[in-house]
Structure formats: C-alpha cells, structure tokens
C-alpha cells in the first residue's frame, strides 16, 4: 500500500485538498499529513521549503485542523506528522486533531524516553500512537518502541533526514516486521522499485513525501507519479 505525504495547506489550502484527492484517486491507500513547522529538524530541503512556503502563505494550527477536515471524506486513513512544539503549545491538540478526522499521530522529535505523556494524550483522544525508528535503532530498543505503538512503526529506511537519495535499507524493515506491528517505511523512497522492495520485505506501506512534493505544483505530473508509485 502506498502512503502519500503532503504538508497540510501546501501549496495553498485549496490545492492541498485537490492534491489529496488526486493522490487517493491514483492509488494512495493512506495520507500522511504534516503540519508546517518553522524548525523541522527531521526534514530535508524539499519539505523544509514546502513548510516555509505554507507558513508564509499563512499556515496556522487552526488552518491545519481545517485542512485535515477538508480531506476527511476521502475514505483513507489520515496519519499526522507533527513536530513536538506545536503539540506542546496546544493542550487540546490531540482531541482537536481527532475531531478533525485524523487517525494517528507521529511526533518525530519525541523519542521513547520522553513519549509517555504524549502517548497518553494521543490514546485518550482516540488517536493511534505511531513511533519512529531508524537503521541504527538497536533491536532491544526497537522491541520497547514497538510495545508503545498502537498504530504502526514508522521506519526511516535511511539514516538521516527526509528526501535522502540513498536506497532504504531492508535490515531494519525486516527487524521491525518481526515485532509484529504494522510497518510503514519512509525517508528517501522515490520510485516503484523501492516501494516494491520495502513491501516485499514485509512492510504494510511505503511512504513517499519529498519526491512527490517536488512535483506537487504540477497536478498532472503529481497524479502520474502517484499512480506509478502505487503500481497502477
């Protein structure tokens, strides 16, 4: 299954809703939605630039929630990726996100040791808790993280930031699959062969973000690329 990542409200709120629709029509089985943030340390240049554009265009948390709501009727799970300070600044964030139609929440800059409070807020709002692991996460740690997860394990297939040009490593994917949690793989996936590789290793989903955001301002190209990645 293909997950398509998009920054909420990018390039503008209307076009964002349209891109989400195009993604689903062309084979995306889930949408991964990121709230634009001023300091996205896990992201590479493409998503940094998209977040910057969205913020310059007037993105706020309230508008992000409205953006989620605008695509809630598409019939696919909406998985949120939101940096910690946006959640920290809005005590009702998890509840608001759930009401807007979100399915799960990943806060990329809250690791295992610091996640207890966040996880509690996520679960009590009725969202699934998703956690990030990477190629250097030890097997022991992977097991502990897997036990906190109620949604899926988000596996970064390469050590680094989003939009990486390396092929995702399959060792960590296989280890994550062995935890018997659903596994989604992201960071650096940009073609159908890579999607097939990670699905072949047992992942439920491959997430493509930067490669699609790069072409996102051309809706036709975006649609064709989603279809190709989805194997249509």
């Amino acid at each position: 299954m293909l997950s398509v990542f998009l920054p909420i409200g990018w390039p503008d709120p209307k076009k964002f809703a349209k891109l989400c629709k195009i993604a689903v029509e062309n084979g995306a089985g889930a949408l991964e939605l990121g709230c634009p943030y001023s300091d996205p340390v896990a992201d590479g240049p493409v998503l940094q630039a998209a977040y910057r554009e969205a913020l310059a265009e007037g993105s706020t948390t309230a508008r992000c929630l409205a953006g989620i709501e605008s695509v809630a009727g598409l019939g696919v799970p909406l998985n949120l990726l939101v940096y910690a300070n946006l959640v920290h600044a809005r005590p009702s964030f998890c509840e608001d996100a759930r009401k807007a139609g979100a399915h799960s929440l990943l806060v990329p800059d809250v690791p295992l040791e610091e996640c207890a409070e966040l996880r509690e807020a996520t679960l009590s709002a009725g969202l699934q808790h998703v956690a990030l692991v990477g190629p250097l996460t030890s097997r022991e740690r992977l097991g502990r993280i897997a036990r906190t997860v109620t949604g899926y394990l988000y596996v970064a297939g390469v050590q680094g930031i989003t939009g990486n040009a390396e092929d995702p490593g399959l060792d960590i994917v296989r280890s994550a699959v062995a935890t018997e949690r659903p596994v989604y793989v992201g960071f650096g996936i940009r073609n159908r062969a890579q999607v097939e590789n990670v699905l072949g290793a047992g992942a439920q989903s491959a997430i493509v973000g930067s490669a699609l955001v790069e072409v996102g301002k051309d809706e036709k190209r975006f649609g064709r690329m989603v279809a190709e990645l989805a194997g249509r």
Partner: protein
Amino acid sequence: MKPRVGAFGEYGGRYVPELLVPALEELEKAMPLLRDPAFRGQLDAELGTWAGRPTPVTRCERFAPGVSLYLKREDLLHGGAHKTNNAVGQALLARRMGKTRLIAETGAGQHGTATAMIGARLGMEVVIYMGASDVARQAANVARMKTLGAAVVPVESGAGTLKDAINEALRDWTTNLRHSHYLLGTVCGPHPFPTLVRELQSVIGREAREAWRREPGGLPDVVVACVGGGSNAIGMFNAFRLDKSVQLVGVEPAGRGLATGQHGATLIAGSPGLLHGARTYILQDADGQIREAHSISAGLDYPGVGPEHAMLKDQGRVAYVAISDDEALAALRQLCRTEGIIPALESAHALAWVLKEDLQGKRVLVNLSGRGDKDMAIVEEASRC
C-alpha cells in the same frame, strides 16, 4: 510535556528524532571520561599550554567609578572567547569515541573558530554551519575559520542566524553520526549537552572564585554574565550558586527594545516550549512556531536558552535582565576608552548592566566572555548611523 531524561526541573530532556538517539547515548556513555585522571590531565594540558588557561582577573577603576569592578578575562583565551574551553573538551572526547569529523554551529563565529582551531590541532575534519546573515556580519571570523582549514557552510533558511545553523548541524549529525561528532557550542540542546558543556565551562567560575579569594578576598557581591544560549554564564555561575550572599545576574539582549518584539530575551519575554531538543524558555507564537530573535550581537541572537537557566529563573536564584543594542554599544565604547580592553558585543551587554544599575560600593565580577575585534565593523557602522 515534562522531560524525563537529563531534566533540570521542568526543563531539559531529550526531544530529538529517534534517529539521533544512538549518538546522544554514545556521547552520554563517554562523559565519565571527564572524571578520568588521564583524560583530565590531557584536557588540562591542552587548556594550559595551548589555550592559555588560567585567564586573569583584572581590576577596573575607570569604567564604573564607585564600583569595585573585576573582569574575568575569557577574551584572553586562545581564539578570543570562552568557547575554546568547551571545544577542546568535546573534541578530545570525540577523538576518544573514534570520531574523525567535527560539526559545529556558530553565531558570532567564536565557537566555529574555537572548533576549527582544535580540529586542526587534532587533525580532524571540521564543518561549520553559520547563518547566512551571520556570515555577512562576522566576516573576520569566517576568514579565520577558513584559514584554519574548516569548511564554512552558510545556512539560508529562516533568518539565517544561529537557530538555523543549529537545525542544519543537527541534520548533518543525524546523517553522519557514525564518524561525526556534533560539537554543540552552548548549554542548549538535548541531554547530555547542557550538562556536558556546563562541566567544560565551569573552569571559568572555579578560576574566578579562587582568584577573588586571593584578591580582593572573600566573595563578590554581584556576579554578572551575558546570556544567549548561556554557556559563559553557567560556567561562571556554577562556582557561586551555593554562595547565598552572591547575587547572580544574567543579561539577555533586549535588541531594539522588548516592546518592539525585536530582541533575544527568551527568559524575560519568552515562554516554555521545545526547541533544539530541550524544553526551555523560547520565543514562539501562540501556535508554537519559533519566532526569530534579534540582537546586534550575533552570539546572543537566538530564540532559545539553556534549560538550566530556565530552572534558575523559576527558582529565582539568578536574576535575568535585558540590555538593548544601543546600551551594549555604549558600554563597549566605554570599556575601550577607560580600560583599554575591547569587549565582544555579547560581553558588552553584561558591562552595560553594570553602568545602568546602581552598584555604588558593591564588589562586582563580570565575565568578559570574549574580545570584540570581530565586532569592529558593526561598531563603525553604528557610529555612522
């Protein structure tokens, strides 16, 4: 969200992507080396014979008449600022961890210079991230870093200042942590950095306290330091924090004035949030988007502050105050003309508070955290306005 790892009360913690956790765990495991006599000996030898420690404490009679003023002279340290204390310690640790490449962020360029210097001496590759607008306003330090063999990478994102340089350094480290160490320059960041950098900078306060005990004797009434990220202040305050009679004052940059919003006074005008791996006071909007700071001094131009300062503020142990760009400039000029010392614009904030506050008859110790040679272009530019 309350931190669990490396907490200073409600502040600190380790808010980073999981991908960076292995590097922080590795660093934490290496920290006991700081107590290892052989490692300690090596560090002290470098600080003594290469970097010029101990630095003197200078009595100043003309700068603020009526105040018994002494300056701890970190401006005389190799490289021209206190940053060298931390850079040498972390670089030696990094080498012991088997790292061959050092990454650093820099604002004013002092930390970048210190890292470039020790990197050259230890034969390590050095990459410095520096905000593009800081590259422009601190050209002298950029030239120094390049001459020392470091690669200087201008960071265009955001306002092109220290915050953006730290983001980029964190991304590099996450990607290259197998062979690279991120030599973070201040008491900010995820655990263990605030503790590690405090340990390495505490030499400032230890020396100053010892020197004061000999001359003029006893303890100072007031100890003053500027606060950007807060490493020179923590390094100085740490030696006096248990001395109840000693008033500790941290001076933040008020920039063009607190009311204008163009400042870097995070403790005075900010609120708790998460930035660069720690819960601390930050400048942010209602949604939690990080706001840009402003200060005439690149080293204080940062919308966060070390988490230990956040705790010290809440405890009331340290009084935090703010000084404007203009007040800092005036204090810089006054120290030049009265004592023949050119202070860094950062340190000039601490000096300006001494001029502004009524300290008649008080015995005051100011941490002169760095020298101002790098700021001459800014000072000249300001004189023309």
